[in-house]
């Protein structure tokens, strides 16, 4: 279908084009040819006219020449001057000789007056022809020719006149009269068997001859009145009535003619109802015009023929062209068929098409392209299928996931509902908490991570005397605390902010009204789940009273100990002096008694000392002053102190220590107390000849001290009480050994403070081994009222 469409489309277009162009061509051709033919015809007519008029001229020239020739004869002058019989005979003889075949109707001489004096036609004699223009012109000296109808003959005559001159004068006129019959026959013959008409007119436009007889003595067009009068006066055509024909233009041309060339123009002849070509040609030197009338139609017949032939040719060539094109198109569109088939196959789903077009041109290229595209499509389809598969799997997975998510969300929503309830509960709790906070008897402040107060409870106001309005927004404590040292604040911030640990401290405060009080302060950071500080909570308690009590206690203990010690000192010294013999020599018994007094007193002193230490430990008022301490030296010193007892009991004391035992930061007094208590215990609670060993070692972190003996040991069931204040195990009490029961408590307290550990192993009657460790980092400095002794 399409093939035909394209083809028929093209052909249709071609036909249209060719029709149009053909039509235009034909029209133009016709016109041009017509024109050309016309022009040619006109040209031909012109040429013909010229030729004809030339012929006429030559014809007439013959007569002119005869006249001149005759006139050249000098005798003519004689004869004109003297027209006697003799001359007349001579003249006539000459004239007749000349007039071969009687061409001329008459040859005659007119005298000066216009009278015919000699004439071959005797009828002319003695007639006066002075009215004739030919005579007027000739007598004026001009050879000329004129046409008129003869008065006698009543026929047209062509009068050739030549002036007869005698010297300067013109004495007569020689005239030759020609009958135009021959001429007219000539003209008639020319147009015989043609569609043309001919007319020979005079200088006025009066038709002298026409092949259409009726035209004789009509004028071409309307003559002017003066012209008609002139003709009349000349008696040119006698009294013939001169009708005018329709050839006005010819008439005008004639009248206005300046050229000697024939003038041709187209003319619609109303009479004949046809287009005509009129040519008007002057006859040179003669007052004559040749007018030809040709039918134009006839002229263009040739043109039409030509046009028809041309058209035919064009049509033929068009048809053959169309045929040719049709063939080509058919041939060229064959690939289209193949391509259509190809695309159809693709449309049906066959993407593995092959291009069968091998025309080597754009269509083959197109075919290749379609093939390629189809193949690409095929692969991308398979890709697509594959992708769709994958996607489908993905989607179903996603759907699963979405289902799970939906379930999860539903669960969450349920949880949220629960949480909401919890939150309501929490809010309630919060209210309760706030209530608790507010009604707490402790001053509680909550600050931001920079220490700016964001909340305070009622107690803050009560304790500090500052209102919450005054407190909130300010840095905590700035209102009521006494400024501490830079060091103190640095340590404070370091603990709570950097190390994020709670700080316990005692501060001196001053209420708004100026009253001073002591407060125990605890500042604890509150961390969020990112371990960043959210708030600080500061709790202060007015411990003024406590402190006072403490101080009172301490004072009391001090005082008590002082009071107790005075009499003890007294007894000590007096007993000492007695024993030293300062009061006189004592007998053995007396010395013994005094020794008992002294010993008992010593125990009291020891007890009092221990009690004092314990009270300081309890009150936390003991001081620790660490300094670089040589543990080994102190141990050695203590051993030296105990030498008397060691020797007295013949004990074997071994001291093993690491030579590279480091010097540690410790309070030597406290270290001394440790050694004193442990070693004196071992010495005290080991029987004679027993073993006591002291070992000092260290590992990377700690100092390791071991005190071992093979003494009485600690009964198993009492071991748990051994570090208790004033506790003495039953076995040693039964043995009346001295002891305060405070030593181990003190040692443990000191060790604990040093950050160390103490432990022991013991079996009754087997021995005891105390192990303790003190961190090599040593003891921390502690401010205190009193030293442990």
């Amino acid at each position, binding site marked *: 279908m399409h093939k035909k469409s394209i083809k028929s489309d093209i052909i249709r277009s071609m036909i249209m084009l060719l029709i149009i162009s053909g039509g235009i061509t034909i029209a133009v051709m016709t016109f041009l040819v017509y024109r050309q033919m016309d022009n040619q015809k006109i040209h031909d007519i012109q040429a013909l006219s010229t030729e004809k008029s030339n012929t006429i001229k030559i014809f007439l020239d013959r007569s002119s020449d005869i006249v001149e020739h005759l006139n050249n004869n000098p005798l003519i002058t004689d004869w004109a001057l003297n027209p006697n019989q003799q001359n007349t005979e001579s003249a006539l003889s000459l004239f007749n000789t000349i007039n071969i075949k009687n061409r001329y109707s008459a040859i005659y001489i007119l005298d000066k007056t216009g009278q015919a004096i000699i004439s071959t036609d005797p009828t002319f004699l003695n007639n006066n022809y002075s009215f004739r223009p030919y005579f007027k012109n000739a007598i004026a000296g001009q050879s000329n020719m004129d046409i008129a109808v003869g008065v006698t003959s009543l026929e047209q005559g062509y009068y050739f006149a030549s002036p007869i001159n005698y010297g300067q004068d013109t004495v007569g006129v020689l005239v030759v009269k020609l009958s135009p019959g021959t001429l007219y026959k000539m003209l008639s013959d020319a147009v015989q068997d043609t569609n043309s008409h001919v007319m020979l007119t005079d200088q006025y436009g009066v038709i002298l001859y026409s092949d259409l007889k009726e035209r004789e003595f009509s004028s071409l067009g309307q003559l002017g009145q003066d012209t008609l009068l002139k003709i009349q006066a000349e008696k040119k055509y006698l009294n013939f009535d001169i009708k005018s024909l329709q050839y006005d233009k010819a008439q005008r041309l004639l009248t206005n003619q300046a050229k000697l060339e024939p003038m041709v123009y187209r003319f619609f002849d109303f009479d004949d109802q046809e287009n005509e070509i009129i040519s008007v040609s002057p006859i040179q030197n003669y007052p004559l015009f040749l007018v030809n009338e040709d039918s134009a139609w006839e002229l263009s017949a040739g043109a039409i023929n030509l046009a028809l032939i041309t058209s035919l040719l064009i049509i033929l060539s068009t048809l053959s062209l169309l045929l040719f094109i049709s063939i080509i198109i058919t041939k060229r569109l064959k690939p289209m068929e193949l391509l259509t088939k190809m695309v159809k196959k693709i449309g049906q789903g066959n993407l593995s098409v092959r291009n069968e077009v091998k025309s080597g041109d754009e269509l083959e290229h197109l075919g290749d392209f379609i093939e390629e595209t189809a193949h690409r499509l095929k692969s991308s389809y398979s890709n697509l299928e594959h992708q769709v598969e994958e996607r489908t799997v993905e989607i179903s997975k996603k759907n699963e996931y979405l289902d799970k998510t939906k379930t999860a969300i539903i669960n969450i929503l349920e949880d949220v509902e629960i949480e909401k309830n919890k939150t309501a509960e929490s809010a309630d709790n919060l209210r309760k908490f706030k209530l608790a906070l507010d009604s707490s008897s402790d001053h509680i402040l909550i600050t931001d991570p920079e220490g700016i107060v964001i909340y305070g409870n009622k107690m803050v106001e009560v304790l500090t005397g500052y209102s919450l309005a005054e407190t909130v927004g300010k840095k905590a404590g700035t209102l009521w605390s006494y400024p501490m040292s830079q060091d103190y604040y640095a340590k404070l911030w370091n603990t709570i902010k950097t190390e994020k640990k709670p700080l316990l401290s005692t501060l001196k405060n001053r209420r708004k009204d100026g009253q001073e009080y002591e407060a125990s302060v605890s500042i604890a950071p509150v961390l969020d789940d990112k371990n960043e500080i959210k708030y600080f909570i500061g709790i202060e308690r007015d411990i003024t009273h406590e402190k006072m009590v403490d101080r009172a206690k301490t004072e009391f203990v*001090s005082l008590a100990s002082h009071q107790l010690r005075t009499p003890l000192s007294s007894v000590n010294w007096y007993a000492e002096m007695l024993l030293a013999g300062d009061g006189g020599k004592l007998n053995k018994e007396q010395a013994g008694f005094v020794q008992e007094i002294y010993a008992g007193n010593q125990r009291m002193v020891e007890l009092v000392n221990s009690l004092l230490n314990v009270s300081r430990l309890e009150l936390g008022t003991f001081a620790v002053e660490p300094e670089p301490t040589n543990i080994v030296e102190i141990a050695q010193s203590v051993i030296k102190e105990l030498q008397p007892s060691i020797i007295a009991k013949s004990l074997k004391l071994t001291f093993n220590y690491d030579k590279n035992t480091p010097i540690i930061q410790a309070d030597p007094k406290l270290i001394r107390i440790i050694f004193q208590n442990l070693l004196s215990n071992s010495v005290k609670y080991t029987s004679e000849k027993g073993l006591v060993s002291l070992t000092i070692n260290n590992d990377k972190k700690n100092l390791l001290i071991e005190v071992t003996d093979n003494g009485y040991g600690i009964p198993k069931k009492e071991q748990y009480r051994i570090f208790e204040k004033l506790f003495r195990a039953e076995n040693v009490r039964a043995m009346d050994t001295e002891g305060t029961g405070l030593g181990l408590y003190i040692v443990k307290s000191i060790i604990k403070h040093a950050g160390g550990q103490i432990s022991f192993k013991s079996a009754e009657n087997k021995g005891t081994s105390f192990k303790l460790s003190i961190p090599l980092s040593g003891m921390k400095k502690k401010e205190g009222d009193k030293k442990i002794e």
Partner: protein
Amino acid sequence: MITKEIKPTVLVVEDERSLLEAIEIKLSKNGFNVLKARTAAEAYALLKSSNTVDAVWLDHYLLGTGDGLDIVAKLKNDKKYKTTPIFIVSNTAGTDKITSYINLGVSKYYIKSNNRLDTIIQDIQGSLKK
């Protein structure tokens, strides 16, 4: 062997009578000349009146106004007694007090009940030899 030299003088400032006497006896037995005072005022009077005081045995708490610290301060400000060794023998063990005494420049501080008379006297003798 005690040579016939001038006996060193010790000023003992102690408020307890019994203790004061015990100290005096023991010091005398050891060849010391003893000046006794129970109050700061008495101490100052004795210091003023006596020619030499070679050492001072000083308790902290005293009768009347003034305590051991005041006396030490006074002694240290006195051209005459600036360098005199001072031994504090007291039953008070307040760390601050001990530190104060040591800062003021006392030679030694003893807890009365922890020390024997002869030990203390030995130390005094030791310090005087220097």
